């Protein structure tokens, strides 16, 4: 945690916390820092209390921290709420009027009078406090101004823009001479570095994979994937639709996939519930489909803007009956891109539903990543049937050893293709013949076996050690960083990162986990869902589970505290 600083900007909904943070993020990115920005929102548009954390460093960051180096409080309540987390050598920036009752050396107040006349109102608080901070950090005011000009010139009046710029200048002049505090790490500018949230990475990965159709019904925190795809759909040839409900969303996506597009849908837990039946249809019809689940606090409506990792056991078993599926959980924003692209290849190869399991913590965290390398992405549509001489029914469900039968697409081929949600024979005719049923069911289930065997083992970091921590998704970042600190403190602790959560490659997993005597799960849920899956599917036994269900992400400190408890410290 040394080589980083943590800024917190806090205020009421509607006060512009998010735009101040967006701005700060852009400035710091441009300046050459690595970033990890997280938000803590209430499900309301005005009022309440929101705050965001901007962590920056010269190294890649994959987690948020609790302790604050710089607090920008847009109102008094925010100052009071967050002071307890401000480090002893931290600083709080606040308008003078918001800190009248507080005596704390760490608080730097800005008199209302500093800044141009036009900026005396409260709407400029964000800009003012940011200017103060950047001066303090010794950052280039030129970058700040350029960023504001680029971001705002289209959106606000010239006069307003000028007021913003003047505010920065005046505050810089007012404070600059005796103020700068030197950071103990240096920026490393890299123009191709990107600042993306988890959903944006996923959407970009889908685009790289050649997605053609995305159908969804809005649901926090999945909606931004819909937004990104809808935004570039016209230009890139992606048909995107907000349909009437999630049932329509998945059924339409299945129709699109049958017809030859790469198709996906996305939602959060409640919406996935409504897709349950059509997930089974994808299973028996063997229609490749990618389903994005941005998990949030549960059950039911839960806490709409809060995170959780509690959909795993549900999606692992969703829809009645046995059929193969695949669950992928990217552990960071870079993986979100590559694994989302790969999801379509795996869906096409195995002709199954593939879930991308993310959560609110990942969806709303902005992270700096190196520009995605398109050399690492390939498009593989799986087995396509050779063209027939004339119109003929395709043996769409031909029984094969690995369970995979060749596909073709209506009108794009001479084949006529029947896909059926009943049990069906090889040409897709409904059938309840005993032998046919056994052959078809076994064919589908053989895919699951071969698929499992093809999946990589989890990566183990920090071995040898007696104790192992298992984690996935948004929990990986904080666990890895905490484990590094923990080991640096002289403890032994290894970490296993799972990206492929179902099916589990039993042999490989048992092998790499064999050396550990005590295996713990850290997951953002109550019951330790990945641990339960492991117990169900392998001989691995879980010693204990560290859960978190309050809807907030794990910070590095949260994890560290738990480590100390584990080793009985």
């Amino acid at each position, binding site marked *: 945690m040394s080589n980083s600083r943590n800024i917190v900007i806090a205020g009421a909904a509607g006060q512009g916390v998010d735009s101040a943070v967006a701005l700060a993020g*852009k400035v710091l*990115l441009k300046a050459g820092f690595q970033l990890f920005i997280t938000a803590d929102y209430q499900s309301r548009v005005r009022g309440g209390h929101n705050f965001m954390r901007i962590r920056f460093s010269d190294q890649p960051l994959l987690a948020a921290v609790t302790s604050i180096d710089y607090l920008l409080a847009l109102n008094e309540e925010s100052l009071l709420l967050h002071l307890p987390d401000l480090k002893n050598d931290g600083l709080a920036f606040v308008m003078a009027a918001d800190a009248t009752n507080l005596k704390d050396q760490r608080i730097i107040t800005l008199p209302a009078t500093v800044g141009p006349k036009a900026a005396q109102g409260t709407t400029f608080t964000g800009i003012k406090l940011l200017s103060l901070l950047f001066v303090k950090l010794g950052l280039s005011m030129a970058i700040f101004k350029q960023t504001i000009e680029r971001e705002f010139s289209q959106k606000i009046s010239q006069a307003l823009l000028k007021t913003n710029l003047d505010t920065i200048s005046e505050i810089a002049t007012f404070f600059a001479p005796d103020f700068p505090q030197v950071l103990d790490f240096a920026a490393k500018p890299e123009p191709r*570095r*990107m*600042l*993306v949230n988890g959903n944006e990475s996923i959407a*970009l990965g889908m*685009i*790289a*994979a*050649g997605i*053609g*159709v995305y*159908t969804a019904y809005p649901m926090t925190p999945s909606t931004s994937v819909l937004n990104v795809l809808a935004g570039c*759909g*016209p*230009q*890139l*040839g*992606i*048909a995107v639709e907000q*349909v*009437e409900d999630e*049932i*329509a*969303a998945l*059924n*339409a*996506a*299945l*129709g699109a*996939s*049958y*017809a*030859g*597009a*790469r*198709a996906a849908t996305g939602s959060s837990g409640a919406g996935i519930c409504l897709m349950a*039946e*059509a997930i089974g*249809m994808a299973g028996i*019809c063997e229609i490749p489909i990618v389903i994005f689940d941005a998990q949030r606090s549960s059950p039911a409506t839960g806490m709409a803007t809060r995170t959780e990792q509690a959909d795993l056991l549900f999606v692992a078993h969703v829809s009645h009956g046995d059929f193969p599926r695949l669950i992928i959980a990217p552990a960071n924003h870079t993986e979100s891109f590559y694994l989302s692209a790969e999801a379509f290849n795996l869906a096409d190869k195995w002709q199954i539903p593939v879930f991308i399991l993310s959560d609110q913590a990942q969806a709303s965290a902005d992270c700096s990543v190196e*520009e995605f390398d*398109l050399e690492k992405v390939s*498009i593989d549509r799986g087995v396509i049937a050779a063209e027939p001489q004339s*119109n003929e*029914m395709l043996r769409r469900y031909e029984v094969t050893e690995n369970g995979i039968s060749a596909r073709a*697409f*209506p*009108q*794009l081929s*001479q084949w*006529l*293709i*029947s*896909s*059926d*949600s009943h049990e069906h024979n090889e040409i*897709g005719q*409904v059938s309840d013949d005993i032998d046919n049923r056994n052959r078809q069911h076994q064919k589908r289930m053989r895919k699951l076996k071969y698929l499992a065997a093809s999946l990589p083992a989890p990566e183990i970091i920090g071995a040898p050690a007696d104790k192992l921590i298992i984690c996935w998704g948004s929990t990986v970042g904080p666990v890895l960083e905490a484990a590094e600190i923990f080991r640096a403190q002289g403890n032994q602790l290894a970490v296993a990162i799972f990206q492929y959560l179902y099916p589990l490659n039993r042999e490989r997993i048992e092998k790499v986990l064999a050396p550990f005597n005590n295996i713990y799960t850290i997951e953002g849920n109550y019951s330790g869902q990945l641990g339960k899956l492991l117990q169900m599917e392998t001989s691995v036994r879980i010693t204990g589970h560290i859960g978190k269900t309050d809807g907030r992400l794990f910070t590095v400190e949260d994890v560290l505290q738990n480590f100390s408890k584990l080793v009985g410290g």
Partner: protein
Amino acid sequence: MNCEYESAFVPQWCPGCGNFVTLDCLQTALCNLNIKARDFVIAAGIGQAAKLGFSLKCNLLAGLHGRALPLAMGLKMANHQLKVLAISGDGCFYAEGGNHLLHTARRNLDVTMLASDNRVFGLTKGQAAPTAAATFTTKVHPEGTGAKPLEPTLIALSAGATFVAKAFTGNPEELTSLMEKAIQHKGFALIDILAPCISFNKVNTFAWFKKRVHSISADHDQNNLAAAIELAQFDPEVTIPTGLYYQAKKPVYGRNKKALQGESIAIRTQNYKPERVKGLFANYQS
């Protein structure tokens, strides 16, 4: 009829089931229009009527109960050059799938919806469909349904369908000709087909319908929505107009979408390369 889409699979309906007529008429209509088997897809729900597609040699996506229209939506998104027919029963389209009817109609998706209206759930052995009369009694409704029957044509018109018709399997010529028009229509086309279930609807029999249906009078203005909506407010226990209620030329689904012009996405997909994403990276760079 010797069409390329004749199939070896014999329909498993009760002898005398109205659906046989629907199947015949559809084959005739498709033949008459000279539509190639590779150029159309049937999206089906679940029910007796929904099984129709199994008896054609054609592209078939036989989906879930109630969900034929969303499948059709996806088919048209991936390939807007396909002809798509959504085929199922009144339980499937109007009970389980009622929401999709509203929204697919108002989008004016270019699909031909053939709804077999026997006022009963045939496949599950005789529960009331939404089109059943309030007095219709079944094992589930020993006291009658008590509900106003849903009139599909009225709902479809209210929602924005641009082709709305009613037909009766007792008049196969009219049905065939309506099917031809509906298939040629650009936009959302519903034909609500009165197709008696001989096994589980002992009230609304062939004879019962025969007595009540009549072809729409010639002076009905088929391009007038208000007139069509007025026409659709009949008493379904007394008199049922068959024929074309309404047809209008309106922008079909996708007309406003750049992605859905020209070549279909299904075809273009074959040339999509990972590099297509490259141009977006700048949005996230500083």
